[in-house]
């Protein structure tokens, strides 16, 4: 049985989320360890992991993801993100910044996730637009900073459309 690691952060699904009955409850532990990363369990919101070291930007990213009707998890560096990915099998998309403290930046993290959890979708944001675009794993989406919230939401919807069941929160 898997226990939550001490680095676990709050789940934000109930913060200011648009009404969606029954969704956003913390996962029962029994669900851990089963299935594949990238799976979406029936009648649950898709889970998105946000990796960003700046607290205010991370707050904003969580806010926009939750408002778009998804469940948000957050990490402030790559190591924390990987620990979360190992503990949770229901993360379908990772939205990460590039420059972060620690041994791994967002680009290395993106490559690591792509090879270890291939189905997980990737959105990478950075203020260094030109250098980074070409260094990302295939299939990941680059967004220059500062990004428009609606651009991110559109991108998430586009990436999750093939695997997501229709939700009432979708436009």
């Amino acid at each position, binding site marked *: 049985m898997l226990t939550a690691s001490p680095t676990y952060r709050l789940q934000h699904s109930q913060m200011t989320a648009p009404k969606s009955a029954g969704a956003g409850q913390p996962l029962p532990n029994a669900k851990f360890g089963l299935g594949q990363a990238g799976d979406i369990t029936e009648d649950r919101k898709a889970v998105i992991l946000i990796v960003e070291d700046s607290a205010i930007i991370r707050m904003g990213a969580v*806010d926009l993801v939750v408002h778009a009707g998804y469940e948000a998890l957050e990490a402030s560096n790559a190591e924390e993100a990987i620990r979360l990915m190992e503990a949770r099998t229901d993360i379908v998309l990772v939205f990460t910044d590039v420059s972060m403290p620690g041994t791994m930046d967002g680009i290395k993290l993106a490559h690591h996730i792509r090879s270890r959890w291939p189905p997980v979708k990737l959105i990478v944001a950075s203020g260094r637009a030109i250098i980074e675009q070409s260094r990302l794993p295939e299939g990941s989406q680059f967004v220059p*900073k500062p990004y428009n919230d609606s651009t991110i939401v559109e991108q998430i919807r586009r990436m999750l459309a093939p695997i997501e069941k229709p939700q009432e929160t979708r436009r």
Partner: protein
Amino acid sequence: MPTLSSLLKATAAGSARIEAYEIDLKRAGQKTLQLVVNARVLEDGDPDRIRLLVAVADVTDARADARQKDDLIRDKAILMQELQHRVANSLQIIASVLMQSARRVQSEEARGHLRDAHSRVMSIAAVQRHLAQTGVENVSLRSYFTQLSESLGASMISDRDRLSIVVSVDDSVVKSDISISLGLIVTELVINALKHAFPQERSGKISVDYRSHGQAWNLSVSDDGIGMGDRAAKAGLGTGIVEALARNLQGDISVTDANPGTLVSVAHIADGVADVPAAA
């Protein structure tokens, strides 16, 4: 220096020729010198006494200068990237805070103001990104206005099939500070058109147009919406911003009935004396 000596021998034998051969001259107790050696046979018609013409130049200082210059250029590039990265991150913080406030605030009017503020920040961010990508102080207005309209559309238009922004700009290139002023004028006029020209889910198109000829230029934003009718423009913040910036650029604002819709243009007429001033 065995290599040099064998090269000189080969040159003397006529089988080689030394051109700009670089060697490090190492001597005990003295600093290493970088030398450039040129050597060739001096053909004076005497095959028995072969003579070599050898030229040696000390390029130690010149090389050090060049290296230092390269280092400085590289340092400057790294510094610029770092700066642009920080600016982008700071603008992201501001944008994030504004959007979080806009989502939380109860009053529809306050939400509108916060969204407008967000659009203004994104408008400045667009020119910043443009400068980071092109790396020059001159901004090509066509690509900047295209990026800007893309950004405004993304944040202000919920149904992109209903409303669109079309950009038509000539090959004009302006200084970055002027581009910021022009970009802010476009931002305000587009926000204004989006707010007032298309009530009740009306569909339509907003056109952003810029032409210049010598010193003269004309910027216009038009829409095919409901038109101004008899309503006078309220002197809001947007109007104030446009007036101040237009004055700064020595441009005259005119508002005309486009039938349908409204056309607002800011024009600077060349007077042969004044240059376009630096924007505030």
